């Protein structure tokens, strides 16, 4: 078999789809895992900064072992490597009296959904003409909701299989919390569908490139670098961006953005909604009985869910991989890489925001949390849909 036949085989449509999908999944998954491990480190560093501490700063390269004069700490970046090694080498202790099969299964069920969600996130425009979305599903957003609703299983089963009171209460709390906030989460994005007219995340991102990010009330039309030089054109583009419909729609979109953001916090069990693992009440919540890599899977699952949630927020409301003045991947592979970079920068900023919130706000009480979900967000999200429909009906041209 010579190279020409192999190349020909690789360009058969379904073979091409297969190997590009594998490659994209591989790259995106690995990038995500890297971002997740950096986030774990950033969580400790940012919390230290907020609380006026130094944080982890001792783990680095031990140059003195090899005859160097001074150890190199690199701001404690070695912690990112040290943590996984510690977790991998610890004894995987399984307490007596647990349901072995489900005890083993639960951490995997927590880790899988966030990874499956990555499949529909558009993490870049195109690279060499290949779309940088693993699967352009036409019901992408619904797919995200469907898969994230499955993540309840892992946590509930972990609480139940541990055969201990605290994990059980943690598991029950978590599942009821996730079920409650799923409703608000789902309803809050309906205005986005009504405005963009699509459930496909790629089409929603494309809409935002044409019409501006959904969280912004104003977007200059056809703004390019060249317009900056000509004042008359600049004024023209700035005025062309003004529209009553856009400004009126900004109100429901901002509401849905805030509800979606808060619901993502609740879905990923982050503070101020981390009741399932409230230390003062429940020791460690559903993962109290877990050790070693099984515990690490819960931990990674939480951060991967944060990543997936941030990716969804960025794609739905913050323009996805697009950035004003930066062309898309059809202008060359360099811009394709830049687009991927833009997506990851935006997601990282969202992750930083989540960490910031965690170390700023105190925890909710459980009944307050449920009340907020059912009596606050749920009716507001429902009313928001009607508001959007009214605005669209009255300003329709």
């Amino acid at each position, binding site marked *: 078999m010579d190279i020409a036949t192999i190349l020909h085989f690789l360009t058969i449509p*379904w073979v091409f789809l297969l190997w590009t999908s594998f490659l994209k999944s591989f790259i995106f998954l690995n990038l995500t895992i890297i971002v997740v491990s950096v986030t774990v480190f950033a969580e400790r560093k940012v919390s230290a900064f907020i609380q006026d501490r130094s944080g982890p700063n001792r783990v680095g390269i031990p140059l003195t072992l090899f005859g160097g004069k001074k150890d190199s700490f690199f701001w404690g970046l070695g912690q990112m490597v040290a943590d996984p090694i510690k977790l991998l080498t610890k004894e995987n202790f399984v307490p007596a009296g647990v*349901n072995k099969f*489900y005890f083993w299964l639960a951490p995997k069920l927590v880790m899988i959904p966030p990874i499956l969600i990555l499949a529909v996130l558009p993490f870049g425009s195109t690279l060499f003409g290949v779309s940088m979305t693993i699967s352009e*599903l*036409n*019901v992408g957003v*619904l*797919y995200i*909701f*469907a*898969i994230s*609703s*499955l993540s*309840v*299983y892992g946590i*509930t*089963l972990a609480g*139940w299989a541990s055969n201990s009171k605290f994990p*059980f209460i943690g*598991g*029950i709390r978590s*599942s*009821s919390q996730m*079920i409650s906030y*799923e409703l608000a989460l789902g309803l809050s994005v309906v205005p986005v569908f009504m405005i963009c007219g699509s*459930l496909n995340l790629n089409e929603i991102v494309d809409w935002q490139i044409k019409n501006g990010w959904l969280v912004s009330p104003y977007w200059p039309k056809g703004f390019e670098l060249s317009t900056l030089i000509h004042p008359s054109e600049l004024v023209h583009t700035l005025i062309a961006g003004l529209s009553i419909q856009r400004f009126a729609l900004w109100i429901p979109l901002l509401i849905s953005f805030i509800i979606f953001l808060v619901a993502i916090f609740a879905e990923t069990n982050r503070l101020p909604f981390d009741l399932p693992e409230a230390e003062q009440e429940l020791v460690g919540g559903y993962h109290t009985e877990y050790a070693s890599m099984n515990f690490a899977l819960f931990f990674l699952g939480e951060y991967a869910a944060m990543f997936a949630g941030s990716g969804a927020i960025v794609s739905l409301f913050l323009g996805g991989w697009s950035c004003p003045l930066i062309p898309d991947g059809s202008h060359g592979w360099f811009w394709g890489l830049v687009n991927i970079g833009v997506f990851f920068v935006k997601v990282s900023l969202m992750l930083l925001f989540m960490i910031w919130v965690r170390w700023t706000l105190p925890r909710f009480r459980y009944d307050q949390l449920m009340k907020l979900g059912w009596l606050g967000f749920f009716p507001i999200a429902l009313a928001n849909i009607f508001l959007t429909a009214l605005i669209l009906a009255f300003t329709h041209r």
Partner: protein
Amino acid sequence: MLLSAFWFFATLTIAFGISVILLRNPVSCAMSLAMCFISLAALFITLDATLIGIMQILVYAGAVMVLFLFIIMLLDLRTEKSRRLNFGTTLGGVLVIAAFLSMLTQIVLSNPQFAQTIPTLALPTPDNVKMIGMTLFHSYALPFEAIGVLLLSATVGVIVLSRRTLR
């Protein structure tokens, strides 16, 4: 490709369906049922009905089965003791299954049309959300709304019934 996917998921669906009946731990039964729903969703997706497939996961696997699991855990049901098979009930069961299967084979064999696989859709990526939305809100708007009202009344009924016991 799709045919092999069909056989794979069909086998999976039936295997998990059987394990719902055969397993004795209630939590295992609930989990098997959830897996059964998920494989069913995969079957819908191989038939180009992505929206229905995703809805299947969202509603049945994600919401209904979680509530089932919840209740099973809260009730703290013990593992059922495996009972010895009763001759009469086994015979009855086998007869019912045999009758059903023979009816099914008769229907399938009655028309050669049933033996063929469904042709793939003409459109490469049909916008099924739009099509289902149009069908529901244009052709069947009244029945759809009626079902909505029915469900609402059921919800209100549940609230009223649970309130009465409190007083």
